[in-house]
């Protein structure tokens, strides 16, 4: 199935281009060949029922899938025309440019400051002033600075669930990636914390290309510019969010978004 967003508007630059991306777990196919383009500084939502392949797709965009034993990826993913699965490409470099936020917030059991500084330190930045400045910038960007600026040395696990998830976002932003992948970032949070995260995603899209997996269709409709619907390991439909949610071209998509299944 071939769907390219370029047909919908020539003014868009494509950040990630995916061609025939296919994922196998052992001999089982987890994702049928997917072809799509993800436009720069836009939010793309991946929706679909559990086990439909949306998380598998997301995790192949920064090569996190290969950490799973027996997982094999075929096809081509390009970040600004550079093949991320090309020979000699280090997944570590790919992951510095394509950051990720997980479903369950997973701060390190270190201080708030050290959580955000972690990516900088492992990246070889040692200058204290620079680290402090970038930690503050990342925390401000994640809308957490005001809440934590007086307790940066406290353990990150003392934060609330919503704060922890924003800390994880700040941690991902600190290394200044170009793309931010989010795997159901608000599914474990209460409505207020969720609203915080959604506002944040909107804000982030000014500077970052965001790809977000969500179970919540209202959330997809609220935060995203583009929506891809996955079903049974296949990409069914990919289009502008307002088109997907008002007049989708596939009956399967319509069934799903109107709540007939899933």
């Amino acid at each position: 199935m071939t769907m390219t967003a370029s047909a919908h508007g020539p003014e868009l630059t494509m950040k990630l281009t995916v061609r025939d991306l296919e994922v196998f777990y052992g001999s089982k196919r987890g994702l049928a060949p997917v072809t799509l383009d993800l436009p720069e500084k836009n939010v793309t939502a991946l929706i679909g029922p559990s086990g439909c392949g949306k998380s598998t797709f997301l995790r192949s965009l920064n090569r996190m899938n290969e950490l799973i034993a027996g997982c094999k990826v075929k096809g081509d993913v390009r970040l600004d025309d550079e093949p991320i699965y090309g020979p000699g490409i280090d997944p570590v470099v790919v992951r510095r440019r394509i950051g990720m936020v997980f479903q369950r917030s997973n701060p390190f059991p270190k201080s708030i400051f050290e959580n955000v500084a972690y990516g900088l330190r492992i990246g070889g930045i040692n200058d204290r002033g620079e680290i402090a400045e970038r930690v503050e910038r990342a925390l401000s960007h994640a809308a957490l600075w005001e809440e934590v600026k007086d307790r940066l040395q406290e353990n990150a696990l003392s934060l609330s669930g919503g704060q922890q998830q924003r800390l994880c976002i700040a941690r991902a932003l600190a290394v200044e990636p170009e793309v931010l992948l989010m795997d159901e970032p608000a599914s474990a949070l209460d409505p207020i914390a969720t609203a915080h995260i959604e506002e944040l995603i909107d804000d982030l899209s000014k500077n970052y290309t965001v790809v977000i997996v969500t179970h919540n269709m209202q959330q997809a409709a609220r935060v995203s510019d583009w929506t891809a619907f996955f079903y049974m390991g296949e990409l069914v439909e990919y289009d502008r969010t307002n088109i997907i949610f008002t007049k989708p071209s596939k009956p399967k998509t319509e069934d799903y978004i109107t709540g007939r299944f899933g």
Partner: protein
Amino acid sequence: MTVAARVDSGRSRPFVRAMRNRAGDVALAVSSGAAILLVLMILAVILGDVVIHGGRRLSLSFFFTAPTEGMTQGGIFPALFGTLAMVLLMTVAVVPVGVATAVYLHEYAPARSLLTRAVRIAVSNLAGVPSIVFGLFGLGFFIQFVGVGLDKIFHGGERVWGQPALVWAALTMAVLTLPVVIVATEEALRAVPRELREASLALGATQFQTVYKVVLPQAVPGILTGTILAISRGAGEVAPILFTGVAYFLPHLPDSLHQQFMHLGNHIYVLSTQSPDVDATKPLLYATVLVLLIVTFVLNLAAVVVRARMRRRLAGVGA
């Protein structure tokens, strides 16, 4: 059978079963209680006997003087010193090797490869080898092979390293306690959530950075548990050091790694079986046993305290 009788028996059968279950519960509670009591009594008898008989002889000078008068007088300082030195050396040797092995097995080795499986089988077999066999291994490998080899290369065949010595005893004991450290460390690594590894890798950390900065700090309490167990085992075992470094009696402390040493466990054996006057050494024997127990207990306690502090720090309470 009348209808009423059938109804009655239908009711009573589950009732009887419930009673039988209840009786089972009581029997189990009583028998396990008795078993615990038995264990506690044995412990109390051993400890009580040692403390009562040994406590009288304990004094500061007992700790800090050497045996005199054919070991019927004096203290145990050389044996205490030797034991602590040997355990310290053993710990320095076994912890890095054990932790490195566990990290390789759990973080790097492909889970189902032949090599991984072979190493695992070797580790669990190592744990089952009788300790006297480790002693013979230490004699054959460390002294005859490594020690004599070193002498040939560096000392023109003169005996310096090729004889029983503190370092060989410590290394032999390290081999003996290696499985304990490996198993405990692997257990600790397994308990580190996958989410933390993923968080680190997703930030562009290498595998090594992830292990070194995220996984290992989380595993420190578990590694310390392994170290505690290794130390307890190493402080008490005598068989592995019999041929590899322990001495019956030494007039002075070892001042280098290639000298022999005295050891509390061995000293107890010597006092109880090798003394010319067993009655005269008896009070000393009790006191020495008490000291060995105290040393093991203090080493354990120290490690437990360190571990508890590490745990608190990881949980974010102390930080």
